[in-house]
């Protein structure tokens, strides 16, 4: 048994597998399938200061080896999270992280400040990369100044581990990563979904209600892997890799590219027990190849 523990800027994970926000609910939706405590960490749904209804249906289109979504951050708001959901998940013996989104820097700050008060939430993932909302979201994540300003503001209000989730819909993701590092991020996670579109040829119209959506699943893996490699070589802070991971082999590739931990998203829809299988598979890989610890393979690919 290899040592699967990793440390992301003070956040201790029992293994490098986290769940990607928006694909694993609050974890409770999956407890019939996996022992949640066997997962390194659970990143819950995107949470905003005020409740949001999200975008209209249809919000999903299947694509080759992937899917588009335009959910648009439907959630009941941070106060509901604190009063109704947090009590149900706080005693799960793993790391529960909240993915924080907003329309303005003030929203992000206020939302982060409220989550800062929750004893059993050791970290937040700041989502400056949602492609499915009109204001905010990705708008902050696509310029170095926008990204830095939100991160700097949240850093003042949030005192635990601050992970910033990056958008791939940019010219140079390394520049954005450097900007958020300088603004005080403890770690970065990437990638969020790639902007895409689906058209119904028979009905001659765009399928998704807002016309565009974010692409996820195996289709985006090579793009994500390249970006993780680039960012890991550019920044000093830890990198969390995601995008299309569906197997332990995929996860190992991200670790080799420079990710200290990985997230699993869309693959949960196909196999709700995939997270623990990937953690086990990483262990098998390390044993088979003679590595003592997962840390020994992070970023070793030239």
């Amino acid at each position, binding site marked *: 048994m290899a040592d699967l523990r990793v440390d992301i800027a003070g956040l201790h994970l029992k293994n490098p597998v986290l769940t990607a926000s928006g694909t694993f609910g609050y974890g409770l939706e999956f407890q019939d*399938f996996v022992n949640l405590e066997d997962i390194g960490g659970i990143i819950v749904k995107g949470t905003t200061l005020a409740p949001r209804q999200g975008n209209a249906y249809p919000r999903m289109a299947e694509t080759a080896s992937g899917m588009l979504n335009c959910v648009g951050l439907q959630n009941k708001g941070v106060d509901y999270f604190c009063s109704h959901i947090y009590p149900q998940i706080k005693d799960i013996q793993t790391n529960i992280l909240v993915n924080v989104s907003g329309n303005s820097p003030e929203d992000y700050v206020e939302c982060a400040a409220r989550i800062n008060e929750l004893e059993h939430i050791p970290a937040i993932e700041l989502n400056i990369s949602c492609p499915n909302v009109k204001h905010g979201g990705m708008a902050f994540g696509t310029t170095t100044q926008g990204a830095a300003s939100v991160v700097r503001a949240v850093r003042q209000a949030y005192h635990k581990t601050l992970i910033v989730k990056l958008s791939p819909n940019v010219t140079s993701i390394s520049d954005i990563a450097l900007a958020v590092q300088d603004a005080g991020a403890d770690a970065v996670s990437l990638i969020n979904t790639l902007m895409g579109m689906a058209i119904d040829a028979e009905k001659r119209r765009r399928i998704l209600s807002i016309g565009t959506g974010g692409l996820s699943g195996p289709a985006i893996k090579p793009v994500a892997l390249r970006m993780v490699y680039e960012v890991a070589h550019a920044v000093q802070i830890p990198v969390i890799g995601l995008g299309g991971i569906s197997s332990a082999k995929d996860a190992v590739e991200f670790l080799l590219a420079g990710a200290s931990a990985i997230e699993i998203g869309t693959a949960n829809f196909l196999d709700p027990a995939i997270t623990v299988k990937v953690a086990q598979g990483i262990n098998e890989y390390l044993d088979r190849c003679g590595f003592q610890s997962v840390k020994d393979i992070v970023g070793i690919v030239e």
Partner: protein
Amino acid sequence: MKKHILDLILTRVACLHERYVLLQATDPAAPLPEMMPGQFAQIRVDGNKDTFLRRPISIHNVDRRSNEVWFLVQIVGEGTRALSRLQAGDKFNVILPLGNGFTLPASSDEKVLLVGGGVGVAPLLYMGARMRELGVEPTFLLGARSQSDLLQQKAFRALGRVFFTTEDGTAGERGFVTQHSLLQNERFSRICVCGPKPMMIAVARYAKSVSTPCEVSLENMMACGLGACLCCVEDTVEGNVCVCTEGPVFNINQLKWQI
């Protein structure tokens, strides 16, 4: 209800019609879990990049003696075509049971009408079977385009009274289900409907006009089927709710349909 991921083995695949197949499957390892009528399974379709996601398919019947669950599948695209090509002995992966299900009668005084159109008849067979177990005889009103599209007639007849409509008049009364004389001649304590949306809306309108409680089963596009992705939402009086967890069965009063 606890959800299970199971590898089922097909015991029988019957082609009912060029566009419909009946899949009967068993779990060789254990008794199948408890399932309610109206609930569904998420079936994995392997081996094609274009059928990436699982496919939601209703529980058509559960046979406890043979430990079988049945699915009635209409071939509309690649995923359902792949399912139709499976053969007895093949293994396939399902997650079940998902969703809420129809309301079962609370007493034997209830007179429940089950209305189905096309492949929407699927969950009604199991509903009828469970009603019989509770000592209530179901009444079925089943509609289709033509005689050959009326599925599982024998199985429905074995459970209760069955009325048909076909659009071309080749079986039962000619027209749509809402035009059937049964609706003029009898009243019911509840109506459960599954079928194409325009049909469900028409039945809901009828039910409302005669003040009969009515439940409909929605078929919104799903990704996870587990309440995690929020892709399958329906706009209801309580805002956007997930059809996969709060439904697929809804009382028509919860919906914002123009009826």
